[in-house]
Structure formats: C-alpha cells, structure tokens
C-alpha cells in the first residue's frame, strides 16, 4: 500500500505541475487512555487534492473533523491512516510524504512551504507584535530592517494600532490577537496555507481586509485549504466549497491507489 501510494504520488506530482497537496484516505482516531481507552473516530478516510491558485473551503457541521483534517496536514496531529503528500521540487520525487516524515522534515516543510493560521494566537511572553510578525521573514533570511518594514505595512493594513506594535499581544483583545496571528501566518507568502477560521472574531471591516489578503495570496499562486463559517468571506475566497463527507470514501481500502489525471 505504501509503495503504491509513493508511486502514485510521484506520478501525480510529476504530471500535474500545479498540484501542491494530495491527501489520500486520511483517518484519525483518538485513543483516550485517561478515559478507559475510549476511542473517538474523527476522520474516516478523507481524500483531497489541492492545486496552486485554489482555495478549498471545507464545510460541514461543527465536530465533523474539519480542524482535525487541517491539523493532520500540518503535522500537528498524527494521522492514524492514509497518506499526505506535499510538493517539494527540491526532491527527485517532487514531493514529501508528510505521514512518514521525520520531525526535522516537518519543521523544514513548515519553514519553506506550509503555513497554518488558527483561531488563537499562541503568544510568546515578552515578544512584541512587530517581532512576532517579522519573525517568519527573519527566519527565512530576510534582513531585520526589511522584515520589520514589511511587518509594519501588514499590521497597518490589518488596522492593528501602531501603539500596540511594541507590545506583546498577551493583553490584546481577541480580535487584535487574531489579526497579529493572521499577519504572522501570511507574511512569508508560503505556497500552501491552512486556515482554521482566521476571521472568527473579527468585525466586518477587518474580515474584509483578511478576505482581500487571502484572495491576493491565492491569486499569487498559493494553494489554500480553509474553514470559514462566515458566509460572505467564504463566498469571496473560495474556488471550491466541499463537505468533509463528500471527501470521505465509503470504503477506505481502495483510496490508496486512487489515480487522477
């Protein structure tokens, strides 16, 4: 099954230049050892291809596993079954199999290729908003001054008041924290973006700004998978809206060798 999946991925990434992400038969079951080993099945074989310039919005009721799926793609959750492959043109096979990658590979992928914006900012004590937002650029070798200038421009655009830039966001309002988080997630222009309700606690004006930023990223060629509950934003950013149930195969056994072309 593994060799099959590798080969089919290699073919897909070689033939389809625009293919950024291929998930096949992703299953996720949580085993809660503290609660008598109860097993909670969250995903039952989800398959999805995402190309450059596409924004796939996942729909489905709360609890359907949308966030879990995004977290599996980001390597934050370990998929119980299935494969996730992400384009990496520096390799002969043109892709990295995330589901078999070492932690170092995942760290590298996160630096070079995929970004993730969650609803909540995981604040780092004592680090200013401006530094938080410029950090992804600095870690990619952009000079500090240049990085700060670009971070300032983005914070400005997201209406984060200038007086807050030198402060750590721990004491900011939910909406302000979320905008710092979005700026941090989008500034590096990564080619694969995973967005988990990035507009959840924003007012209409700021939601519009975020939607603009997402559309710009998409038009610049990013492949995006997102969750948006707000109808307007969804309408504006999505090139495709799909229910998680539509992506889930009834019999996961044959998804590994599924071929598209």
């Amino acid at each position, binding site marked *: 099954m593994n060799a099959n999946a590798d080969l089919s991925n290699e073919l897909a990434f070689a033939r389809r230049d625009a293919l950024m992400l291929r998930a096949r038969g992703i299953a996720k079951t*949580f*085993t*809660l*050892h*503290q609660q008598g080993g109860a097993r909670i099945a969250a995903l039952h074989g989800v398959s999805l291809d995402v190309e450059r310039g596409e924004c796939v919005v996942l729909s489905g009721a709360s609890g359907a596993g949308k966030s879990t799926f995004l*977290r599996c793609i980001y*390597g*934050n*959750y*370990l998929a119980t079954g299935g494969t996730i492959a992400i384009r990496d043109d520096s390799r002969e096979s043109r892709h*990295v*199999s995330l589901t*078999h*990658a*070492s*932690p*170092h*590979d*995942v*760290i*590298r992928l996160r630096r070079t290729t995929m970004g993730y914006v969650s609803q909540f900012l995981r604040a*780092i*004590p*004592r*680090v200013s908003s401006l530094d938080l937002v410029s950090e992804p650029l600095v*870690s990619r070798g952009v000079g500090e001054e240049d990085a700060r200038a670009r971070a300032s421009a983005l914070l400005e655009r997201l209406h984060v008041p200038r007086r807050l830039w030198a402060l750590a966001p721990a004491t900011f309002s939910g909406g302000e924290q979320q905008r710092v988080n979005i700026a941090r997630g989008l500034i590096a222009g990564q080619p694969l973006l995973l967005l988990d309700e990035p507009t959840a606690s924003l007012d209409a004006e700021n939601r519009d700004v975020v939607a603009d930023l997402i559309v710009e990223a998409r038009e610049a060629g990013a492949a995006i998978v997102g969750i948006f509950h707000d109808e307007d934003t969804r309408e504006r950013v999505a090139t495709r809206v799909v229910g998680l149930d539509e992506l889930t195969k009834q019999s996961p056994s044959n998804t590994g060798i599924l071929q598209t072309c």
Partner: protein
Amino acid sequence: MTVSAHVAPLLSARGLSKQYAGRGGCVEIDLDVYPGEVLCIVGESGSGKSTLLNALALRTPSNRGTLTYRTRDAGTLDLIGLAEPQRRMLSRTEWGFVHQNARDGLRHGVSAGANIGEPLMAIGARHYGRLRETAADWMARVELDAARIDELPSAFSGGMQQRLQIARNLVTGPRLVFMDEPTAGLDVSVQARLLDLLRTLTSKLHLAALIVTHDIGVARLLAHRLMVMKDGRVVESGLTDQVLDDPQHPYTQTLVASVLPV
C-alpha cells in the same frame, strides 16, 4: 521512515544506559541532537531525565551503549572512554552546562565579570582589557547591568544569577549546551524573561540545546522536539506541538492533561 540526514547530528546516543546498582537511572536511550536544534527531555522527578543529561554530558559514566560527538574540526569522537584531558577540552570549547541552581554553576568568590572571563582564560585568553570588554558585552546580552561587573554573584538576585550562569556558559561560543531545569525555582515573571532570553540566544547563535525540564510550558516555548521519559525510558518523542497536542502514550496524555490552563 524517510531519512532526512541533510545534516549529521552533533551528539548521538544508542542504547545508552546509566543505572545505579541495576536500578533507576535511564535505560536503552537512543537520541540525536542536531546543530541549532533545541531538544527538551520532559518527565517527572525520578524519571531518569537528569541522569540521562549527566550521562550525555559525560558528568557521570554510562554503563552501556554508544555515544559520539561530531566536533568542529577534530572529526567525530567516541565519547565512551574518552580521556580526561579531551573531555575537559570538549566541555571548555564545544559545550556548556547550565545547572538548575546558579550556585552550582558560578564561582562565588570572584566577581560577575571574572565569572564570565574565566572560561575564556581557560582556553588561553590573556588580554585583561579585552576580557573585561567581552564580559561587559555578555552582561548586556543577558540583560544584566554591565556597571555591576565587579560585584560578587551573591549581590545578584536568583534570576540574575541564572542569567550570569548562562553568560558564563555561552561566552566561549559553544555549539551544544546542556541545561538542567534552567527555570525551576524562579518566580514566574523571572522565568518568562529567562525563557525569552534562551529562545533568542539559541536561535541567534544557532546553538543546539538539550534541556531537561518537568515544565510542559517551558518545553512548548523552547523546544523543536520533545522526548518524554518515564521510569528511565523514553515513552514518546517527536515534534513538540504534535507530542503536546496529540499525545499517543498514556503517560504523555496524563502529563499534558495535568497542566493547569492559564
């Protein structure tokens, strides 16, 4: 498992064991530390994490297993059975060791400046003016007032002493630093400052660090990778956010669930 060896590890242990009269300690540990990477070893007291750290840093002899270190320019050293002069050279030029208690890592009879200058003198620096200049520079880098360069360590607060100990360890430009509970016993506000400093220094200096801690928050903030220890063995390891957000082993689940929400 895809092999990702773009860079070779600095420190490698295979099947490393250190037990006391056949009990306790750490058993059959496999571990790699890569250049520039922060690896945290978490676990409760008695899990063997400090024993492991001491065995890796050659502060206590191991019973079994292999341990190698890739030096800057002398190739890869077999650390098991390394001669004492070589071991001392290694810990002066390539390694640092930050103790939980600053008093174990500082010399209390000499000034703050001398505490920072001394490791440089041990590797041959003699120019007094330059030593003093470097010491003052490092005091500033760890956010200590350089005007207090002639004061004894005991004149500084606990958090400041810990920062002084860090300066003393980093002044020689090591590639790998071992830290044993570097923030334990400090006030929370002092901890946050120290963590921020450690985070900045390890990333700016491209420093590899092996940090033992029982504090999940410290690990989440600092570590690229985590190893979870229980009863002397590694029960789970991986990417920090993955291990903490989707723990697989029953013990890790208990550990993560026991953290009080802030």
